[in-house]
C-alpha cells in the first residue's frame, strides 16, 4: 500500500520536473531558467526522501541537506552574477 503511494508521488514529482525542464529549455529570460533549476533541485530533494522510504534506509538523509545547501548557494551565486556582473567582489563598497 505504501509502495503504491510512493510510486504515485514519484510519478507526480517526475512530471513536475519535466514541466520545470520545459521552462529551463524554453524560458524567455535567464531568471526563469535560474528559478526553474532551483525548483528542480528541490524536487530532487523530495525524490531522494521518497527513495529513502522505498529502499527502507536512512543512509541518504544527509544527501537531502547537501542538495538543499548546494541549491541555495548556486542560486545565490547566479543571482549575484545577474545583478552585478561578477560573483565575488574584491571590495563591495567601491
Amino acid at each position: 500500500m505504501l509502495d503504491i503511494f510512493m510510486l504515485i508521488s514519484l510519478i507526480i514529482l517526475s512530471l513536475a520536473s519535466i514541466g520545470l525542464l520545459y521552462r529551463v529549455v524554453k524560458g524567455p529570460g535567464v531568471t526563469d531558467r535560474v528559478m526553474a533549476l532551483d525548483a528542480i533541485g528541490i524536487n530532487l530533494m523530495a525524490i531522494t526522501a521518497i527513495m529513502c522510504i522505498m529502499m527502507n534506509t536512512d543512509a541518504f538523509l544527509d544527501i537531502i541537506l547537501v542538495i538543499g545547501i548546494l541549491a541555495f548557494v548556486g542560486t545565490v551565486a547566479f543571482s549575484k552574477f545577474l545583478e552585478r556582473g561578477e560573483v565575488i567582489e574584491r571590495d563591495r563598497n567601491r
Partner: protein
Amino acid sequence: MKVNDLILKTATNVVSFIIITFSIYLFFTGHYTPGGGFIGGLMTSGGLLLLLLAYDLETVQSIIPFDFKKVIATGLLLALGTGIGGLFFDKPFLTHTYGYFDLPFFGEDTALATATLFDLGVYLVVVGITMTIIQTIGESE
C-alpha cells in the same frame, strides 16, 4: 556605489553557521555512517563561499585570516605524520590503530581511532584547495 542587500547578509549570517556545523557533523560521522573528510571539507568551503558571496574578498580574509596554501601543507603533513606513526611501532606504513578511552564529556568507552587524524588531513587539504581556487579566480580582474 553602496548596495542594499540586507536580506542576503542576514540570511548568510545564520545559514553559514548551520552549513559549517553540518560539515563538522559530516566529518565526525564518517566512520560509521556516510560522510567523511572529503564531503565535510567541501561543505565547509561551501559555507565560506556563501560568506564570500554575501560580503567581499577583503572582509572574509580579515575575519578568517588563514593563508589557505598553508592549510593545504598542514593537512598533507598531518596525513603523512599518521602514516609515519605506524613505523615507530614496527608496523608497516599507514598502519592505523584505535582504543577505548573514558572521556569526561563523551562518556565511557569512547572509541578514538588514528584514522580520524588522517581524515582531518584530508579535510584540511580539501578546504585549502577549494578556497585557494575560489580566491585565486575571484581576485583576478
